[in-house]
């Protein structure tokens, strides 16, 4: 059980509207007290200012550092069970904690698929034993993610699934999607949609445009995403279901979602750091590390996504952490799997939005804590008194160079190799442990 005093940090907790210098007292692993200095002038706090029950109290001086709730990543692939050579619950959650995340939601495209309570139970048990952070599984919408028959959504929810998605295998059949949005209302869980019209994207591997033409690679037009975003929003309107759009990558999707929100439809959306950081240009030279689905798009799309983040159209930043083995990426471009290992670069890339003036630091933290927590209806991502202490302390000025070989994730597949990012976690407190980086 940890007892800890974090002193003089800039505490940001959107769940309580906190952004100020102050102290956090952790007692027996739980947040005991959060004290924000009223004065604008920074005042050094003495240990005696807070009443401490424990005798052995470790103190962290967080002066000049940012203290926030452990981040929530509502879209990761932990690959276990079935693809342990790519990632395991253990290695994936270490990567999460290193990246500042203390809660991750793992997608169901494992082997076997998480489409029944016994797989859910396995993941939860394994995560309890070996996970370095909280793991909230996402169950499949349909059996084996085939898009044909609904999976046992209610039973899986009772076992611990927090949301449902056929991520990677979009539900093509509109009637099944309608039923999923209707049926899941009983259990009040979000349906997370990977929006892709597979009949239109066909064998596409990168964004359709001049670059796909130049490289001779099959393109995926933006419309393949947008058609499904529009369909699912229409179905959410029809059913009143709880829809969350995964990994928004195009300007058109942002516009459709913005319009839907204006009309009061129950829809939320996420994007990933790569969709606001790099364009399809990254694929030149046939770099399979930049092969991701949906594909990297254009400058125009990046601008639209930034605007969507700024005006609240996009609620959440998630990583879509998709680790793959080196041998799988060292292949013909067409054959290499889609995906980017994202947990260890997400915060650094996201902090660029603050530097560019797109988001305030507080707004950014909201998209990484409060908003996903609201969508998932969890108490995680908050520094409220009584919560388990899941905290990340970030040095906003510390630079680091992205070197895939140093990733703790098994997935070294990053298109950001060699980038210098500013802002990284220096301490993560997760599941009763203090990790110093």
């Amino acid at each position: 059980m940890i007892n800890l005093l974090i002193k003089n940090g800039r505490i940001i907790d959107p769940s309580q509207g906190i952004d100020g210098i102050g102290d956090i007292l952790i007692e027996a692993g739980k947040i005991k007290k959060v004290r924000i200095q009223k004065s604008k002038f920074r005042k050094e706090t003495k240990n005696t200012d807070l009443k401490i029950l424990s005798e052995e109290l470790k103190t962290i001086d967080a002066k000049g550092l940012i203290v926030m709730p452990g981040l929530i990543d509502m879209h990761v692939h932990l690959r276990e069970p079935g693809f342990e050579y790519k990632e395991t619950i253990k290695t994936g959650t270490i990567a999460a904690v290193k990246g500042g995340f203390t809660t991750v939601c793992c997608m169901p495209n494992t082997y076997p698929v998480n489409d029944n309570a016994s797989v859910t139970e396995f993941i939860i048990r394994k995560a309890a034993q070996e996970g370095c952070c909280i793991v909230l599984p996402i169950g499949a919408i349909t059996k084996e993610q085939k898009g044909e028959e609904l999976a046992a959504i209610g039973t899986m929810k009772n076992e611990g699934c927090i949301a449902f998605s056929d991520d990677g295998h979009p539900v093509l059949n509109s009637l099944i999607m309608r039923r999923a949005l209707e049926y899941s209302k009983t259990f009040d869980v979000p349906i997370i949609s990977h929006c892709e019209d597979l009949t239109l994207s066909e064998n596409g591997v990168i964004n359709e445009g001049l670059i796909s033409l130049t490289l001779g690679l099959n393109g995926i037009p933006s419309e393949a995403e947008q058609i499904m975003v529009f369909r699912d929003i229409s179905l959410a309107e029809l059913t009143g279901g709880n829809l969350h759009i995964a990994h928004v990558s195009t300007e058109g999707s942002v516009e459709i979602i913005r319009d839907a929100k204006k009309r009061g439809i129950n829809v939320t959306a996420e994007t990933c750091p790569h969709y606001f950081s790099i364009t399809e240009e990254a694929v030149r030279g046939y770099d399979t590390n930049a092969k991701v689905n949906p594909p990297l798009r254009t400058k125009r799309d990046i601008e639209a996504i930034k605007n969507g983040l700024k005006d609240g159209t996009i609620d959440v930043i998630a990583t879509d952490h998709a680790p793959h083995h080196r041998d799988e990426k060292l292949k013909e471009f067409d054959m290499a799997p889609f995906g980017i290992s994202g947990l260890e670069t997400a915060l650094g890339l996201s902090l660029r939005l603050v530097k560019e003036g797109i988001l305030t630091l507080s707004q950014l933290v909201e998209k990484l804590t409060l908003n996903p927590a609201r969508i998932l209806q969890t108490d995680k991502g908050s520094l409220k008194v009584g919560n388990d202490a899941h905290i990340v302390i970030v040095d906003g000025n510390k630079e680091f160079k992205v070197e895939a070989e140093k990733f703790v994730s098994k997935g070294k597949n990053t298109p950001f190799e060699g980038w210098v990012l500013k802002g990284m976690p220096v301490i993560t407190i997760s599941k009763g442990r203090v990790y110093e980086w």
Partner: protein
Amino acid sequence: MLNRKDLLGIKELEVEEINLILDTAAGFKDVLGRDIKKVPTLRGKTAINLFFEPSTRTRTSFELAAKRLSTDVINFSVPTSSVVKGESLIDTALTVQALGADFIIIRHSSSGVPHLLAKNLRASVINAGDGTNEHPTQALLDAFTIREKKGEIEGLKIAIIGDIAHSRVAKSNIYCLKKLNAKVRLIGPPTLIPKETKEIGIEVFHNIEHGLKDVDVLMMLRIQMERQGKGFFPSVEEYSKNWGLTSERLSLAKTDAVVMHPGPMNRGVEITSEIADGPNSLILDQVTNGLAVRMAVMYLLGGVKR
């Protein structure tokens, strides 16, 4: 010599490099006209034809080019290799390199495979066609053939007709001919011409009669039968009626217009036999010149420097 290890595509080449290859090929063409058609230029070197897709003319052409340069050449054909046992591409390539290959001549159905090998191997990688990306030696031999017939490529009106979208030959030819300042236009149905080609300033015609007016060179492309039934065009018959090259259509071009085809032809589909075997046809010259151009490419790359 070329200051590069590999020939991956025309888009990577400078104009000077293209001209150097064409000039060098002219020299080799003289050699091919002699009684003894072999030179000792690359004696002791080894070339491996690594063909993951069926090919007769390109593979044979490279094989013969290597032999004319006194290079040992091995044909690695996929059906008899470990690839069918599940060996990865990179392992196959490393194995072939370990056998001492100086040149790896690669054809593969996936775009970018030559680039992947070039990055991971010491050997000179020559792209003999990758997916729908490029087929650089075809474009070079086409340019050589046009230059040989017309003297100069600059300013010529050249029409490429057919399935541009899936044609690596068309892509390499567009890059090459544009670099040599020809006026390139594309003719075909909208489903077979990527809309982005207009962005790079190439004229597009969907009506062949309009497109063929006053052109100097007609480059026909093979219509791949497997495109039928995929929504690109309703049937081969309909394609042929609308975009096939007939004598009437050819008469719209300049009187001294030449007709080319990279082969293999579908006679009676994209081109009539009358034209293929007629006086305007350069189709067999293309094959002969391919040998000289491929000798030039191998000679100028030189293989592994030890």
